[in-house]
């Protein structure tokens, strides 16, 4: 990075942090620290929810996903508007009127303390791991940029996030997110424009889009049904609906956002804003990845985007031949792309050119697959993937001075925001659902505020410790969703029962949740189906088991009047 980049990066981060801290002043009680005193307007909540989802992983991994696999990942968000409608109609008013701090607090009022405790522990396990992955993402940036070890950069990023979160609370997180969304949009536009500008003059925007489509990178909607296919229309509409129902109905990191709203209407509007804006934004990010792919058609991408691994395989005796064959394939693809673009411009017959272009593309992919295998043979990670390095390599190598710093600042700021939100919610559940509920129920508000700050520190350290796990999981964006899906299904089942099945009570739900988790993990290890279905399976098993237990043992958990459960 050049001096101007550093100036832009440092000043952007400092201004975002200071602005967030300025807006968070007065967070001197537990309610203000954890729920911003329930004073947030809808636009702040909506942008904050979007910014949390659009973390650094969105930039780093989604673009790489599009580069290698096309845009079909956008289908994973088709269930979001459906889920938002359901959440707004049912969950939001219930939580708001119950005036709870956490989603799991509601479960005790509906069921019993053990169900609340189990749901809290499931959330802590899942979100703790996800928080680690969120911190890991920008560590890639620094390791690519500066050659620092990822563990060191993870620790540095984690320390910054921890300090920021401990001081600011949810209000700082939310207002920082609002500012960051503007920076994120600016960064996205800059990256896309740069990709277009740097393409050969003979290639127009229309040609670029055509070339991306011919290479299968614009496959936004795929209608074929396949249980093993991660992203298609059906898994998107059904599976991701359950995923987002879980995420926004049962995950404290999101629930806490809309609990900060001034009213039920404000909370609903914030969520519906997300429902409307998220898919176009995700499409835009994926489209950038597709255009980066087209850019690299003409500028010669490296065999491996991760420089450290490239250096590793360069010592192998197999490398020279592999590099030579790769360069041949890249040149063949470049020529085929130019020919195809020309034919497209001239509206000439191009079936043979498309065939040649796709054959060259397959040759390039095959060479990259051999390189990945070579990385593994040379002692690299098992299942090596450089998906997360593609976009950053493009940014660092080709964006002009100043803009590199801006994009890196966006990546950093988004990560800090997403991580701080996650750590804040982890601390909230720890203090409200476990510490205040079971350990020190009679302590003062100030004591619990201090406990929340200490819990924030603890979860920050925990997240950093887990960050090293991320590099074993391939694409980060998928890894986050896979981890979430391992736990969300049973949580969702629990809340479905809470809201829909009046006769089912705590013990039956508790047993159902354990059965649901067992079913999900069995499916994960033995089922071999897309992770989006884990939520459906987990939810169904929880509900089915709870109904079965209730039918077999109806006296075990008598229902009290007015829907209150007997513990």
């Amino acid at each position, binding site marked *: 990075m050049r001096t101007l980049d550093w100036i832009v990066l440092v000043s952007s981060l400092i201004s975002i942090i200071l602005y967030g801290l300025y807006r968070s002043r007065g967070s001197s009680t537990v309610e203000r620290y954890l729920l911003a005193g329930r004073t947030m307007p809808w636009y702040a909540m909506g942008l904050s929810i979007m910014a949390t989802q659009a973390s650094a992983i969105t930039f780093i991994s989604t673009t790489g996903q599009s580069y290698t696999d096309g845009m079909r990942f956008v289908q994973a968000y088709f269930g979001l508007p459906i889920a938002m409608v359901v959440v707004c109609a049912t969950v939001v008013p219930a939580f708001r*009127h119950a005036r709870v701090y956490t989603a799991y607090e509601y479960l005790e009022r509906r069921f019993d303390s053990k169900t609340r405790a189990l749901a809290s522990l499931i959330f802590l396990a899942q979100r703790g791991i996800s928080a680690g992955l969120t911190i890991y993402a920008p560590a890639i940036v620094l390791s690519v940029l500066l050659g620092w070890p990822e563990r060191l950069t993870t620790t540095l990023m984690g320390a910054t996030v921890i300090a920021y979160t401990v001081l600011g609370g949810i209000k700082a997180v939310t207002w920082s997110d609002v500012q960051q969304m503007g920076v994120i949009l600016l960064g996205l536009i800059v990256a896309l424009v740069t990709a277009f500008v740097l393409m050969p003059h003979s290639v127009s925007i229309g040609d670029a889009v055509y070339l991306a489509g011919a290479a299968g990178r614009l496959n*936004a909607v795929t209608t074929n049904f396949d249980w093993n296919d991660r992203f298609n229309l059906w898994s998107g509409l059904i599976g991701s609906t359950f995923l987002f129902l879980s995420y926004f109905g049962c995950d404290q990191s999101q629930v806490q956002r809309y609990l900060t709203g001034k009213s039920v209407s404000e909370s609903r509007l914030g969520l519906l804003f997300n429902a409307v804006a998220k898919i176009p934004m995700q499409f835009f990010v994926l489209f950038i990845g597709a255009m980066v792919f087209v850019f690299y058609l003409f500028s010669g991408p490296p065999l491996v985007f991760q420089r450290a691994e490239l250096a590793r395989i360069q010592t192998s005796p197999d490398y020279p031949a592999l590099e030579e064959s790769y360069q041949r394939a890249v040149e063949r693809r470049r020529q085929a792309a130019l020919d195809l673009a020309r034919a497209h411009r001239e509206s000439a017959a191009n079936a043979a050119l498309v065939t040649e272009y796709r054959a060259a593309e397959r040759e390039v992919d095959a060479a990259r697959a051999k390189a990945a295998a070579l990385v593994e043979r040379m002692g690299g990670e098992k299942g090596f993937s450089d998906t997360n390095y593609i976009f950053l390599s493009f940014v660092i190598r080709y964006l002009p001075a100043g803009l590199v710093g801006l994009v890196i600042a966006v990546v950093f700021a988004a990560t800090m925001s997403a991580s701080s939100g996650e750590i804040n919610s982890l601390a909230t559940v720890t203090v409200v659902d476990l510490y205040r509920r079971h350990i020190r*129920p009679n302590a003062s508000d100030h004591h619990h505020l201090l406990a929340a700050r200490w819990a924030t520190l603890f979860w920050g350290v925990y997240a950093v410790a887990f960050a090293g796990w991320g590099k074993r999981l391939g694409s980060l964006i998928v890894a986050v969703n896979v981890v979430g899906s391992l736990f969300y299904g049973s949580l969702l089942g629990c809340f479905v029962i809470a809201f829909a099945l009046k006769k089912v009570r705590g013990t039956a739900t508790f047993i159902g949740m354990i059965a649901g988790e067992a079913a999900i993990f069995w499916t994960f290890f033995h089922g071999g189906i897309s992770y989006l279905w884990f939520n459906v399976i987990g939810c169904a098993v929880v509900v089915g088991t709870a109904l079965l237990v209730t039918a077999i043992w109806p006296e075990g958990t008598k229902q009290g009047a007015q829907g209150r459960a007997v513990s």
Partner: protein
Amino acid sequence: MQTFRQKFVRNGRYDVQAQDGGTVARPWWLRVPPINLDLPRTQRLCPPHASGVLPESLDTVCPCYTPSMAAPRTLPDDPPPFLGSWRRVYGAVLLYLAALIGVLYLFTQAYR
């Protein structure tokens, strides 16, 4: 099989006791700590509830009211700032989704 009776306790929750005054038979792996009666609540109980006199149906505007699973539909609701009702807003969002999927499908077909 034991029979149960319900007893309203100070923090607004029901507890279970065996009819004969003995303990409730539960498997050891389902036993959990009893609810702490001194648990600080987000909302203080209103006097009728705090005194242990539970009305037939809880008033939904009562601060200590916990909605049941069927309650959200009946809770008082603020109107949305546009389209008149939340039902219409939700319908508009779902129509938007259908239109978006249609546009993306056409986009995919156009550049396949």
